[in-house]
């Protein structure tokens, strides 16, 4: 990819790219990619679809879930798995929350064709933040005493056993935001925010599909920015449906 690590500037450098295919161009085989989203809000549907067309292989995919248990199905990591692009996922769910649901990802995992690392959701968020914050490791009470902590380093601090967790760095973050300005400053709407600011911190390259037309630099009040533009490299405005993919009412209203 063209950008240096952490490359960015305020206004003159044009961060807006023409379309989703241009946005994901150059993502190499073997990349570690973080995908925003919790349930539907914040999932970069259009960028996921473009990554499927782009075809990068042996990807490590980081997200809350691999998706796919809902109707209608939207572009998700499960599709990249089905497409043979994924070597490993790092998620807080590797199975659906209802035993009766089957994630598209799960059979690939059970056959050993895709690796998975299951991480508690708060630990996942904190590990992403740590990567972005230059904190190589931290201790947490989460998962102590569980199967996830077996064989791993713990210590007692203030009388409580805590588990050592490492930062989770990311090559590319694919995000969906509500608003952006040309400097790359982002705003998310409601629970669309979820993991996005943390993935932007953790990633070398941040690519964002944006729901509203890209604003001129300065149109977002500096106090109202959720993710500062210096973390963001590529922006693409989402066209109206059917050219752009937008959230739809789910037929099954539970995650």
């Amino acid at each position, binding site marked *: 990819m063209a950008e240096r690590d952490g490359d960015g500037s305020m206004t003159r450098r044009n961060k807006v790219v023409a379309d989703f295919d241009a946005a994901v161009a150059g993502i190499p085989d073997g990349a570690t990619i973080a995908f925003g989203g919790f349930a539907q809000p914040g999932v970069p549907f259009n960028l996921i679809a473009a990554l499927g067309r782009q075809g990068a292989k042996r990807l490590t995919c980081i997200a809350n879930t691999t998706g796919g248990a809902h109707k209608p199905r939207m572009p998700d990591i499960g599709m990249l798995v089905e497409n043979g692009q994924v070597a490993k996922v790092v998620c807080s769910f590797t199975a659906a929350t209802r035993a009766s649901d089957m994630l598209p990802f799960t059979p690939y995992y059970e056959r050993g064709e895709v690796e998975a690392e299951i991480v508690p959701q*708060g630990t996942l968020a904190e590990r992403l933040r740590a990567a972005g914050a230059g904190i190589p490791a931290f201790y947490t009470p989460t998962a102590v005493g569980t199967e996830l902590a077996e064989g791993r380093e713990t210590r007692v601090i203030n009388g409580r056993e805590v588990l050592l967790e490492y930062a989770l760095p990311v090559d590319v973050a694919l995000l969906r935001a509500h608003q952006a300005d040309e400097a790359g400053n982002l705003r998310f709407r409601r629970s669309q925010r979820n993991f996005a600011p943390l993935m932007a911190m953790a990633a070398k390259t941040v690519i964002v599909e944006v729901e509203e037309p890209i604003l001129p630099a300065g149109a977002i009040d500096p106090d109202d920015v959720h993710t500062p533009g210096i973390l963001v490299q590529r922006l693409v405005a989402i066209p109206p449906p059917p050219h752009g993919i937008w959230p739809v009412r789910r037929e099954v209203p*539970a995650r």
Partner: protein
Amino acid sequence: MSWTRMQMAERLAREFEDGWIVNLGVGMPTLIADVPLGDREVVFHSENGVIGYGPVTPPGQEDLHLVNAGGQNVTLLPGAAIVHHADSFALIRGGRMDVTVMGAYEAAANGDFANWKVKGAKGGGIGGAMDLAASAKRVFLMLEHRTRDGSPRLLPRCTLPITARGVVTLVATDLGLFAPTGEGFAVRDLAPGVTLDEVRAATACPVTE
């Protein structure tokens, strides 16, 4: 006559104190957001960074940018705030949740519980459960007293991989409300018409009054 799920939700909600921050997990616990609380005001927190949400939106009025932990489209109450996932779990890990209410497969007399992995599965679904279980001030569980084939879910020790050790405060089932004692479960309430003997027959460890 055992409790319906809604009655289980109502019974647990009676335990809430005015001013509590309440986290509701996926599934049955989401019913609690619809229970009237009278004079008591609690703030519902959802792991995805929503603080102060209200009832599920009526069909056709959904805000597709806004879901609770269960993926349901919900409303925001005046005074609500949105934070990102790390800040949301900072509130959880930082001990700000007065209670978390979760579904579970098993609850044990020693306060352990299991809700993320079923027997024989290679993977599972943890979500925020381990973070919430480790750090909320109280852990309330909602589950059917027995599995579909009649096996007890209230056990001396969990048989499934646990979510956290020794954290369960209260367990609401279709038969009543129970608290783990270390050796067994103490009855806090029984569903109307349910007898202690019935509960004992359905439970794999001692049940005390």
